[in-house]
């Protein structure tokens, strides 16, 4: 589906946000690398999806109303076989309070995490942010930002601006991060913000660095 379609459909259903699955579909159309994943509604389909993706997998309850998944126990990681998939399907469905879509996604392994974001400043308009992922973004406030539109050189400069910039280089036996991929994602977010005013906020966190390649494992697109 094209970006317009994804957003229009959600607005017609009066959603305040896109589900993780739709958020990632939209973001991937703008150059943000995301996990391979499949949305399923039965344990059988979940197993099929898990086999296709290859074990281990991650499973999550998925819907436009579901935002703080980890806190609500709606994420199961490192699921290793068919039996565990079926069990996780049942548990997640129960915890989500009944019927819900279940997302089966590839499990990304990496020790480094970054985050992308987009907010709309009341004065300067869309503002794209880059920082360390996970809880560090919030706690350390170590974030670089640019207002859209910005040049690719600006995206590149953002990577060096955060205090934790050294983590993007070759450190502790890990290779350097694919900067071009990060720049593509940041400029893509700017383009998305400029082209779709219905998108109020974007939070892509964490983006795990797997063998140098960034992959967004969670994402939220807020509408409004």
């Amino acid at each position: 589906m094209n970006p317009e379609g994804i957003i229009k459909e959600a607005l017609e259903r009066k959603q305040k946000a896109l589900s993780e699955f739709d958020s990632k579909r939209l973001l991937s159309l703008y150059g943000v690398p995301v996990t391979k994943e499949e949305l399923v509604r039965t344990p059988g389909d979940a197993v099929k999806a898990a086999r296709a993706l290859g074990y281990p997998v991650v499973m999550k309850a998925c819907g436009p109303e579901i935002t703080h998944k980890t806190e609500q126990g709606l994420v199961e990681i490192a699921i290793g076989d068919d039996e565990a998939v079926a069990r996780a399907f049942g548990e997640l469905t129960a915890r989500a309070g009944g019927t819900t879509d279940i997302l089966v996604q590839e499990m990304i392994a990496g020790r480094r995490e970054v985050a992308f974001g987009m907010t709309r400043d009341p004065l300067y308009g869309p503002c794209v942010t880059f920082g360390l992922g996970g809880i560090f973004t919030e706690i350390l406030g170590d974030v670089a930002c640019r207002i859209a539109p910005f040049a690719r050189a600006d995206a590149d400069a953002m990577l060096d601006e955060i205090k934790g910039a050294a983590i993007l280089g070759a450190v502790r036996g890990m290779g350097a991060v694919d900067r071009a991929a990060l720049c593509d994602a940041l400029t893509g977010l700017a383009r998305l913000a400029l082209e779709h005013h219905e998108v109020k906020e974007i939070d892509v966190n964490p983006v795990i660095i797997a063998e140098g390649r960034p992959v967004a494992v969670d994402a939220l697109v807020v509408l409004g």
Partner: protein
Amino acid sequence: MLDAMLHARSVAVIGASKGTTETGGAKLGAAALNYLVDHGFEGPIFPVNPRYEELAGRRCYANVRDIEDEVDLALIVLRAGACVEAMEDCAAKGVKVAVVFAAGFAEAGDSALQDRLLAAAKAGGVRLAGPNTNGFINAVDNLVCCTSSVSDINPFPGGDIAFIGQSGALGGSMLGCAMEEGSGFSYSVTTGNEADLGAADYLDYLIDDDRVRVFALLLEGVGDVPKFLAAASKAARMRKPIVVYKVGLSDIGAEACVSHTSALAGSDRVFDAVCRQYGLIRVDDLAELLPTATVFSWVGDKLPRGNRVGIVTASGGISGVAADECHRWGLEIPELDAGTKAKIREFVPSYGSVRNPVDLTQQVRSFASAYQDAARMLLDLDTIDGVILLATMVGEPRASIYGKEFSTVAREASKPVIVGWAGPPGLASKGFPMLQATRTPTFRSARGAVKAMRRLYDYRTFLDRLAREAAE
């Protein structure tokens, strides 16, 4: 339209007056008229005040409508309550721009009064500057429409800096201090509440003026953001640096701004991003605003190609300080090649340093041109992008020798040379002023010099990036 203000051919002073207040200062209506007259504005000046027949040797009119000749600009120096009527008179007369000096509008909570003032201006096709402003100065054409006592400095020293700031009082003090340090400006505009004309309008207009080379902005809010950003882009294309100090970092600062000029301060982090994106040189200390603008003005096109500096001093102590500051501000101090070291050794005693930073030691007293010679050797190296000359405790007549050496080196070099003069200027009574008179960028500390070099380098980096993007 701003032509009629910043290059007005005729000026009416509504509320012109004479005499002093109880504390001995000139009444505002008198100050506005007298500064305009005393600075020698050549066009017609029309005092307006029904209480006088004549002021400052000119016919005084009861109302601006009574003036037969064309009036480009009106300075309205009345209390807030009387300004709307005066604006209506300006509209009827066909005045093009009116500057309203009085406070007591939106900044004091009376938005309704400001709205009426603006409505009266708009209805009559008059552009409004202020209210709540100290006015403006076009120092090139001696057009001084300003009530700030900074205009006691007469004549203004020439310069190519344009100052634009929302706060009139701070604007005056910044400019006054800068002038005492040898700097000069071509324009100064204090914008006040920006009910109509804002900082972005003046910026946009003055970029095209070839008598402006550098901008110094003291901002609370940027006002019209798209216009401001467009102006910033234009300034970058024309290679005219914009140095900016922005109030509103703290929540209390931001609140003070809102009540001061009714401007929305905006998030500081986002403004920081804007500065990086548009190549604005942001200073975090108001006292650095004009000195930084002055360095850009004096250095001109000689921006450093890289971040590698050569340092020459006669004090081992300040060598260490300078090295630390370079580290802090991201400048490199490259090792010198053996040939250069040997050449410097010819006039540096064995206990001095021929490494970078070069320490000439106090033996420098025995050599007529040690600073110059060492500086030139460093400037000639491809590995050096700029030179910092540091002086510590120097009295006369030695200070005069340094003053001459430093200014000569700086003038003749094709790379930037910045002086850090850590000693007391009072004891360098001839040498220190010589640096200012020759427009040699000078700071009172190693840090000041290092920081300035870093800013020149940042701006050069930004311009290079723009050039690359344009070429792609």
